[in-house]
């Protein structure tokens, strides 16, 4: 099961908002679609769901044209909403039936998902009587009620407290474990790091970075080191490195407890070790630096923002 988005362009009126978005994701893996507000994540997802039509480009599923109506897709839109005046179970069964389930199956599945998300007690309540967090859980249950093979979640964690976020995290992990194809967009990088094998960062309608998260982290950490000293503050250490190690490395960032150094072209880590050994710096922390997704995101989406 492989979904490929290839060179999607989309304009609203005269304004082009997607300039050739491409990425791919396979079953049993999750893709994190990242981007700042207005970057084009939701538009991309809506094109996937056929809510909008792309001006050009193609979407393929296992090599053939992707037609959403021919697949079982669980879609949690950014604009949340169900019927506030109808009971929870009633509308879940309705959505399951619309997505092809028979009434008996629909009831069973709806009850199963409500139980899984710990909102069974509200199945006969009108949606509007539930708290925002519980409404969000019902919405997620409604997204998954028909056992979708593809799951697309647009900002699924917004509005959830830490306990409910944990329930959702477990559910998403189960979905991935069951071999479903999961795409989700989020601003919360920690969740993306937790689930996603692949990421695509969209900035101003373009994919500025995509690929396997582990490789991306490795690549972005390749020439970077972390360094902290017992006898110097970070400012003093930074000044010293800038002054004395100019030909070897540059300070590329500063964290709370250490500096991030970037090796100059052609220089090796061993050269830094030698330099350290010959200096008066009492090493507190030293090692390879692996950037967080947040660092990478700020680097890619922030630099052009």
């Amino acid at each position, binding site marked *: 099961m492989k979904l490929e988005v290839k060179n999607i362009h989309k304009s609203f009126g005269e304004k082009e908002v997607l300039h050739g978005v491409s990425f791919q994701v396979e079953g049993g893996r999750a893709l994190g679609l990242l981007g700042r507000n207005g970057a084009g994540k939701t538009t991309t997802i*809506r094109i996937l*769901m*056929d*809510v*909008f*039509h792309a001006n050009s480009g193609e979407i393929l599923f296992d090599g053939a044209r992707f037609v*959403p*109506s021919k697949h079982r*897709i669980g*879609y949690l*839109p950014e*604009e*949340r*909403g*169900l*019927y*506030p005046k*109808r009971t929870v179970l*009633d509308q879940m069964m*309705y*959505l399951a*039936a*619309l*997505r092809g389930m028979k009434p008996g199956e629909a009831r069973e599945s709806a009850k199963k998902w409500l139980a899984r998300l710990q909102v069974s007690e509200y199945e006969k309540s009108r949606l509007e009587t539930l708290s925002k967090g519980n409404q969000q859980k019902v919405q997620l249950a*409604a997204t998954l009620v028909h056992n979708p093979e593809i799951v697309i979640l647009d900002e699924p964690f917004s509005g959830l407290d830490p306990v409910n976020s944990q329930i959702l995290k477990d559910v998403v992990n189960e979905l991935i474990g069951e071999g479903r194809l999961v795409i989700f967009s989020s601003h919360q990088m920690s969740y993306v790091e937790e689930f996603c094998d692949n990421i695509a960062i969209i900035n101003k309608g373009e994919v500025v970075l995509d690929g396997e998260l582990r490789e991306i982290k490795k690549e972005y950490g390749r020439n970077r080191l972390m360094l902290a000293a017992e006898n110097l503050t970070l400012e003093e250490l930074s000044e010293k490195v800038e002054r004395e190690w100019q030909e070897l490395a540059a300070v590329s960032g500063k964290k709370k407890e250490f500096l991030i150094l970037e090796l100059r072209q052609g220089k090796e880590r061993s050269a830094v070790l030698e330099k350290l050994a010959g200096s008066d710096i009492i090493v507190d922390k030293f090692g390879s630096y692996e950037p967080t997704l947040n660092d990478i995101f700020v680097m890619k989406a922030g630099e052009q923002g």
Partner: protein
Amino acid sequence: MRKFGIVLKYELKEYFSNKTFMGLTIFLALLGMVLLFLPRFVDMSDFTGVKIVGGETEEKDGDTEENQDRFLYLDQAGVVRDEVLGQMFPDVVWQAVPDEEALKAAVEAQEAEAGFVVLSPTEYRYYVYNKSMTDRNASMFEQAMKTFYRMDYCDASGWNLEEISAMYDVPITMDWEILNKDSGSNYWYCYALVILVFMLITYYGQMIAVAITNEKSNRAIEVLVTSTSSNSLLFGKVVAGAVSGVFQMGVILGAILAAYQVNREQWGGMLDRFLDIPAEVLLAFAFFGLGGYLFYAFLYGAMGALVSKTEDVSKSASGLMVMVMIVYFFSLLQLTNIDGTAIKVLSFLPISSYSTMFARIAMGTVAAWEIVVSLLILVLSILGTGFLGAKLYRMGTLRYGNPIKISTALKDLRKSDS
């Protein structure tokens, strides 16, 4: 088709589980029945002309003194003949008074309903406390005065008034042979049915539009359009609204018609012109009235999709409302000219055939091919507005904010189709 059925069932459940909707239906049906059963329990003989005696009905007895009005007269010219007054005013007890002041005081104290002072053979004064809009006493008394005059004149001239009257008002017998329609008797229920369709369209059309706007305002629409086709959604919603409207009207009208049939005798048949509708007219109404209702229901549905707040629905649907009202008033005006060119043309247009064609069927001359062609145009137009409405609904899905003008929506639709 299966998805349409699912949407239809779900939407119908929404209407039928709505306590206000069902409560109003039952209340209005019961109210109609209670009103029509009233003559069985309350003396309404003044209104219906039928009196209930011991559970049996009988025509109102005009001779009972307590049922009769009391009129006074003062004859200053010496021309009044009591037997003529008795014949012309069978439900009135006449009493002569000695002077005009006494007559006026009695009328003012409402001891008598009316008073007449005959000043000369050709002049009189009429006293009444409150003159009603339907007061015919003065014109009837005028007839009586003319009769007094003719009688006195014939007496003075030695002529026989009865002979002259027989010659002057020779009775002519006539036998009606209506070969096609009786517009006179069909007019009132046609009028009532045109009003009924108008009410159905405006009331339930608005309800359908609001139901669709609600889905945009509560943000359920994106989940729905990604779960099934917009055709299934719009057709399901509109047909559910239409079925509910027909159900509600059907229950209310059915209760009223049934109650009237049971109590027709007690009403003296006085509501026949509204409620005794021939089967073929009801059939024409079922096809054209309901067809027109569906046609407009789809348009109202599409208008609902063009706004995102329920308070904007009236604004969005105002153009449609104006069109419905123009057709409504024009149809009512044209009922008196049922075979005119204007109504013939309108009876083929889907915007107006719902009222004009069925009025022509009920009251005018219409060929079978005309009915078939008009119905065909209406059915195709319903499907056309259905699919157009579904496209507008789909296009309006994620367009929040200011209401979208129908011209802009159609332009955008053309652009996205090309």
